[in-house]
Structures are given as structure tokens and as C-alpha cells.
């Protein structure tokens, strides 16, 4: 198979890579660093890339780059890549400030999505915003398809509760 140059295969997905990184990190500057880091890795490994789906491949590398950065960070108390401390707050209500934004659906959705634990947030972003199939999500996140399915269901359930579309489920 003749290989396309890196620019042609990977650069068209830079926006997608940045969007995913931005949702992972919730921070512009960090997302830029993650994507740049990911692109360096992608370049280095590009000669061994023979798949057709450069976007999913790039997502995987972005995700790895992010987790590596988190892992290299000095550990603060019990910090985990799942930003558990932040996300385990009762998430059935938004701050007053966030509530003020309720009129503004974009801000509301963003706040609610950012409030979700990253495991749930990323599958929702990959599915709803990037339109990946379950199989592709499973490959990026490296979990079985069944796990993708249950994370999506639980993530959406939580998101519905945050957005007051439905009462929060009592379980989990």
C-alpha cells in the first residue's frame, strides 16, 4: 500500500485531536501541549502506521500522551487520571454560577460535560461529537465494546441528571 505523507493522513484530523484533548484536559493550554506531544509521537511512529483510520489512530495517541503527562505529574495526595476528587462531588446540582448560565444552553452543556468523570466524558465526546462507532471507541479507549456500551449508558444517565432532563438514578 503506498503510504500517504504524514501531512495528508494526520493533519486533517488536527481539529478532532484538539477537540478530544480539550475535553480530556478541560484546558486550552494543556490541550495544545497534549496535541503537540501526540503529533511528535505520531510522526515518529507514522512509518509503522498502515491502518486506514488515521483519526482513530491519532485519538489513541492523544489519549496516551495525555495519560502519560498525568502520570508524570508529581502525585498530589490521591490524584488519579480520573480526576476522581473533583468529579466525585455530588453531581446532581450545578453551582449557582453555573445555574445562572442555564439560559445559555452551550455553556450549560459544556459545564455538565466537564463535570462528568473523564471515563464517561470521553466516550460521550467520541460518540456524540466525533461520531465514532462503538468498535472504534473500544479501540481508542482500549476497553471491550461492552464497557463502551455501559459507560455510554451511565454517562448519558448522569448527563441527563445534570441537565435536569431526568431525575438522577439512585444507583451510582
Amino acid at each position: 500500500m503506498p503510504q500517504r505523507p504524514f501531512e495528508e493522513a494526520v493533519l486533517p484530523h488536527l481539529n478532532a485531536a484538539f477537540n478530544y484533548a480539550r475535553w480530556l484536559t478541560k484546558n486550552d493550554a494543556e490541550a495544545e501541549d497534549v496535541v503537540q506531544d501526540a503529533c511528535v509521537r505520531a510522526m515518529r511512529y507514522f512509518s509503522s502506521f498502515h491502518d486506514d483510520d488515521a483519526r482513530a489512530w491519532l485519538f489513541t495517541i492523544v489519549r496516551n500522551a495525555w495519560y502519560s503527562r498525568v502520570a508524570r505529574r508529581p502525585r498530589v495526595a490521591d490524584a488519579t487520571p480520573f480526576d476522581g476528587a473533583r468529579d466525585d462531588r455530588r453531581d446532581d446540582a450545578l453551582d449557582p454560577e453555573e445555574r445562572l448560565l442555564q439560559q445559555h444552553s452551550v455553556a450549560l452543556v459544556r459545564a455538565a460535560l466537564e463535570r462528568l468523570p473523564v471515563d464517561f466524558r470521553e466516550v460521550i465526546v467520541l460518540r456524540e461529537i466525533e461520531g465514532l462507532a462503538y468498535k472504534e471507541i473500544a479501540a481508542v479507549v482500549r476497553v471491550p465494546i461492552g464497557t463502551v456500551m455501559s459507560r455510554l449508558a451511565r454517562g448519558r444517565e448522569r448527563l441527563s441528571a445534570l441537565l435536569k432532563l431526568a431525575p438522577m438514578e439512585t444507583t451510582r
Partner: protein
Amino acid sequence: MSCEQAERDLDAYLDGELDAGVAMTVRNHLGTCAACRRHVVEREALSRLVETAPYYSAPERLRARVVAQTTRFRFVRRAMMLAAAAALAVSAGGGMMLLRSASTFVDAIADDAVDSHVRSLMANHLFDVQSTDQHTVKPWFQGKLDFSPPVVDLASNGFPLVGGRLDFLGGRPVAALVYQRQKHAINVFVSPEHDDASARAAVRSVRGFHVHHWTHGGMSFWAVSDVNDSELTEFSRALGAS
């Protein structure tokens, strides 16, 4: 179909990810169950809301930086290849040059392997399949990778197999086998050998972790752990010999 089952399958149904038979059962259930239909309406409303979430496009300066990197990367690589070729043509100097570029590649993978190791421990994602039975671990990889990694238990050598998972190394999906030495985990990343640059055995120490690399039977192995170097050597030998 019960509501409970329908609820479990509802997301996959709406995402068009169920096979036709199950989808039909869900559809039939929805036809008779108002509560589940409400759930559908709710999910559709959620989807519409999520569609309004911001899409973050890459800033121009990031794009410019990546393009510049690509150019620089290509230039450096071409220069290295030219220099290596020229040196080869002239004398033995080319060997050194090739060695240098190969070792850069090995360093990159070693670094990556340590990242994966640390990640697996931190993210509590050491296994996708947890088993001390090689006959459980090996078939688990089937259909998930386009190769079949050799899986052996080394319990008799003091390195029991504890599980496996899928990982990603050097831009490629790999099998990660997890062994244990007392309280320490050893990650072994296995993939088909096909990079000349990585064919050479290597020993590295990266950020306090030991990394051993070797090839055997057409497969490339990267072992990473915080056990001491002699133990990892013993482990690599045991695995390489099996």
C-alpha cells in the same frame, strides 16, 4: 423483553449498534411500553443538547507548530539517511550513523514502554483479562490483535502470570502481559517484530524503571518493571528461553 433489558440495550439501539434481531425486540418493546418510550424521548433531547456542546478547533499557532515540526522532522530524517548512505558508501562510518538512528528509535519506544507501564499502574488498568492461567489469557487476545502473542506462565521461576490487556506501543497495538514479582508488576509488551531498528536487544533504564528488549521467534518483547535489574534479567531470560 423486560423494561430492564430494554433499558440496558436502549443506548446501543439508538446508536444503531445492535444487531437486527435484538434491535427488533427493542423496537417491539417500545411499541408497547410508554415508560421506555419516554426514555427514548429523553435520550433524543439529550443528544440534541450535546450537539450544542462547543467544538474546540485547533488554534492556528498549534497547527503552525505541528507543520513546522513535520518539516523539521522530515529534514532531520532525510539528512540522517543521506549521511548514513554516504558514510556507508565511503567506509565503515555509516554503521555508526545507522546505529545512532536506530538507538534513537529504541529510546523512543523504551520511553513509551515506561509510560505505558506507569499508566497501567496509575490508572488501575493493569488487566483487561485477569488470570494466572495462560490458557485463559492467550485466547483472550484472539480477535483483538492481528497476531497471537506467546503466553507462558513463569510461576515456577518466581514470576507468576497475573493477566493481560491491550496496549499501544510505538504507534501500534500490542499485547501487554502482566507478571508479578512479589509486590512488583512486570509489564511485557509483545508485538510482531518488523522494525529493523528495534531488532537489536537493548537494556535501558528510564526514569528509574528497567526496560529490557529482545526479539524471539518473530516477536518483539519489551519488559518494564521497577524490580531490580538482575531480577528483570532473570525474568527476560526465563521468558526468552521458554
